[in-house]
């Protein structure tokens, strides 16, 4: 039986840890998002929004108050100031929190989970800044505004106990967008089911496979017992180097399968390595969401 005092202490410690790490994560995500936004770009069509888009001659039916008098005064015709269209999208993010994501092949590299969270949060920052609604699968429904960042942060934290994660479809908004960030090394059927459900709801999106370079290269040799992060699976080999080629074959096979799945569901699929900079993956994600429209 845990004493309430212990609980409180534990909670407080975790909260403090969170308070220390999350702003850092947030700041990092902000920075990452800013680096992407620098060249990124509106919807390139007129519509609702705050940003100026273009002046056009007023037609009949335009409200008088929509005429931009300052511009019109410079010529004989009336002009309407159009603003760039800013559609509101609901984007649901799923970040795999299973223990497999906690792997890092090198002390200098972030764990896959860290990179996934960073990407998710940076994407959230970008989207929120663009006025979209962002939420986490399995959590609260997507909401707009920068204030949404803190709940997102809070929900991103924490690890799941299982070895390999399965995508959650609970928070998907019909006809919205979804982004699944995982290593997709676990069994595939849950993913297939989730994608099927998403397709049913008209949700499209992107699968981003986050892998450690060690998983991509298999730099092992000698007598090794490989165990999953949770310890539920294990495999012993006398010469790990022997296995490399066959492992790589299987990995390529898995990637091809994932790409197939994504294509059939109308999703995008890409692989990101934690050894690479996060910007490229963020850019890809952003464009995947853009292009999916």
């Amino acid at each position, binding site marked *: 039986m845990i004493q309430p005092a212990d609980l409180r202490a534990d909670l407080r410690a975790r909260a403090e840890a969170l308070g220390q790490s999350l702003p850092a994560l947030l700041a990092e995500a902000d920075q990452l998002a800013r680096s992407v936004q620098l060249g990124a770009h509106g919807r390139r069509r007129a519509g609702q929004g705050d940003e100026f888009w273009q002046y056009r001659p007023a037609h009949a039916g335009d409200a008088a108050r929509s005429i931009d008098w300052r511009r019109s005064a410079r010529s004989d015709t009336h002009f309407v100031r159009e603003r760039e269209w800013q559609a509101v999208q609901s984007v649901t993010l799923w970040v795999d929190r299973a223990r497999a994501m906690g792997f890092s092949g090198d002390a200098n590299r972030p764990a896959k989970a860290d990179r996934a969270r960073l990407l998710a949060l940076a994407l959230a920052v970008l989207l929120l800044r663009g006025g979209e609604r962002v939420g986490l699968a399995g959590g609260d429904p997507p909401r707009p505004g920068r204030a949404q960042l803190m709940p997102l942060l809070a929900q991103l934290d924490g690890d799941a106990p299982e070895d390999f994660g399965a995508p959650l479809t609970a928070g998907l908004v019909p006809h919205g967008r979804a982004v699944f960030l995982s290593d997709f090394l676990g069994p595939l059927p849950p993913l297939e089911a989730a994608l099927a459900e998403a397709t049913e709801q008209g949700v499209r999106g992107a699968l981003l496979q986050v892998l450690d370079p060690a998983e991509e290269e298999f730099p*092992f040799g000698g*007598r090794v017992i490989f165990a999953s992060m949770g310890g539920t699976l294990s495999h012993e080999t*006398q010469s790990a180097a022997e296995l490399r080629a066959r492992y790589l074959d299987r990995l390529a096979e898995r990637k091809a399968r994932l790409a197939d799945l994504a294509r059939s569901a109308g999703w995008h699929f890409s692989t990101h390595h934690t050894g690479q900079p996060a910007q490229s993956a963020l850019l890809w994600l952003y464009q995947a969401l853009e292009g999916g429209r």
Partner: protein
Amino acid sequence: MIAGLAFTAPWLLLGLLALPVLWLLLRAIPPAPIRRRFPGVALLLGLEDKDRQADRTPWWLLLLRALAVAAAILGFAGPILNPEPGQPGTGPLVILLDGGWADARDWARRQERALAALEEAGRAGRPVAVASLADTPQTLLPGTAADWQGRLGALQPKPWLPQDLAAWGTNLPEGGFETLWLSDGLAHPGADDLAAALLDHGPLRVVASPRPLYALHPALFDGGKIRLAASRSPATTETTVEISARGPDPSGTDRELARLPLTFAAGAPRAEAELDLPPELRNRITRFEILGQRTAGAVSLTDDTLKRRKVAILSGGADREGMQLLSPTHYLRQALSPVADLLDGSLSDVLPAKPDVIILADVARLTQSEQDGLLDWLDGGGLLLRFAGPRLAASDVARGDEDPLMPVRLREGGRAVGGSMSWGEPKTLAPFPEGSPFHGLAVPPEVTVTEQVLAQPDPELAGRTIAALADGTPLVTRKAVGAGQVVLVHVTANAEWSSLPLSGLFMQMLERLAVSTRAGGGAEQVQGLTWAPERLLDGYGQLADAGQLAGVPGETMAKVLTTGPGPAAPPGLYRNEERRVAVNAVNAETALTPASWPLAATVEGLETARALALKGWLLAGALVLLALDVLAALALSGRLPGLRRAVTVPMLAATLLAGAVLAPGSLRAQEAAPPPDPAADARAIEATRGVVLAHVLTGDAKVDEVADAGLRGLGEELWRRTAIEPEEPMGVDLETDELAFYPFLYWPVTANQPLPSPAAYAKLNRFLRTGGMILFDTRDGDVAGYGGGATPEAQVLQVIAAGLDIPPLEPLPRDHVLTRSFYLLQEFPGRYNAPDLWVEAAPPDATLEDGMPFRRLNDGVTPVILGGNDWAGAWAIRPDGSPMFAVGRGAAGEQMREIAYRFGINVVMHVLTGNYKSDQVHVPALLERLGQ
């Protein structure tokens, strides 16, 4: 077991037997697997290993581990390279020194080595006996180490070599003991017997010196030239030694008269050279010596052998054509021309030439002026040898009263015996009486006398007779006149009156009278006489007065001349009346044979061959192997990042092993090219970090230590008083170290200093030419100046300085810049206060200007300062800052030390600022010119 390798715990080597077991054990156990977290395991499930090779330890890993364990076992067994046998020895220790002149070259080091052994034995409480084998054999009595330490310090090398080592072998103490034999590296008679006897009692350690040994054979006179020969041991590469011929100059000062190089061909133990000198110089030579070798063996004293006496032969009768064999002087000329310089001319002509001997053959009357001249000459030490003849017999010289130029009064007419007109047999010679210079010469029976002049019986006659006929009538008489002597031979110098000039005895008698000199050898020439030692050599080749030593009988002397000197007759100069015989440590036949030792004896160098414990190296090697093993095991089990494929690991191990095997070889290959020397670089950086005072390493540990402490003390004072802030002083090895970094070299001169090599001389000269200064300190200010002769240090300094590019020197003038470069000084004491200090001479045109207190001496720094006041001794401080040596007595001594420091500061100032203080002299003039 390998020679020179021993184990402190040999039983541990049994552990090597366990290696095969280890091999099997290791072989059976493969490296443990790693548990590795890996998310991709899901993809691995179901993949089978193709072959299971890694469940056996690979052979190279086995080998690595076996080597590591073997190295550890060997290491713990405590292997020692060049072990000092009996280091933990017990029982008595006998220390033998050869003690001959061959030891003199590094006697101090031998003593140190023996002292070290003594101290070691003292610590272990072992009884010790020390003996110098050059002494007369005596029974060895073991005593305590403390007893021997004092006696060992007083032991000096003898000027001869050990004579009879076998006799020592019979005088060994009872029971078992260990022997330490400090050998001079030469084979001595009986050494094998002694070594065998020593080995019977216990282990024998032999310490051999690495320094080459040179010996100079007596000079021979041959065909108008002096032939010199020297031997060496060991006979190694081509070497050139310089031989110096010394003797008094016209003022009587001993100096070098000639010098010649003597080159040993590679591998040749003996070298010869010829020296051609004018007779005037040649007759002055008193000794030859090999430069830089301070041993009695490198000194060869000369005696009458080299002297060519000037002999004037005068006869009464005019030479008659065709009557050569009847000429009164024919036989004399024949006998003397090869061994003496003959003077011709009338008496008044030859007297100014100061002949050593004047021979008057059958000359009766002399003019008054001739007689006075002869008497003066006799008073100065001449030898007048007169022969009788018809004219003398017919004259009335010395009939009534004794003629000053005749030893005895003569009876009128003389006598003839055994001739055709007389009765009786020709007379033979009586054996020469004791006290006669001819004593000991064999009298040949065929020598007969048919006619002679007879002496008047006088009271002095018996005393003046040095040879007589069988019937007792005097044949040769002699009397002293002043410092000289008159000798009358009562027969003619030709074969008219006797057969004496035809016999070999005639020559020998002339030699005994010091009229001629023998052509070499001639042990029979010393027979029968007693030879009084005049000056004797010590082991270092220094001559000293013999004092009141007893004379040496001729028989002993003859033996010594053939076999070499010994305790009975030490090397030196011996005198009998006018004749002098030199006994040299090395005679003409002496060969320097390298010693050979029994296999059971351990031979080590004098100071090298320190026991090298290999334990640390082996254990370190084992550790390295184990570290490699760790790496290999890691690599094998895939825990080593960067090594992806296990296949590369054996290759890596192979490379490592190959590298370890090949490394020494490749290192050797690199040595062929001049490798960058990090030690020399570090030293150069150290030397150039600041001003570094340096001293020349002499090889004498004590002198070097004092020099170092002295420069440290001077540096402290400089630091305290002046703007010069020197770093720690450094010792400089002339042969190996670069001199360019030091502005100032302090060179304490020791008597045993080896001469610098030509390369070192070149370095020194470059140093002097580029502004460096050397302060030579002979450290003999306490004794120099007394007794006139140069001290051994001063002689060595002369020899050393001969090769240096030194300008003319003069005693330090009172206005030299050294007297005011920092302090105003007029005397320059160290521990001694000898006034002599020599510096570069001022240019001859230096003049004193009006109003100036000093001469204008503006050029340069004197490259050398020569003195003998042992400055380093006065400067020397201990690490705690207290002075190392007392100077003088009381407060006056401390004042002297202060002045010594001031001198040192002045010297360093002079070195570093040059003539700056001299320029200061002109400041008033400059100020004046600037118009105030």
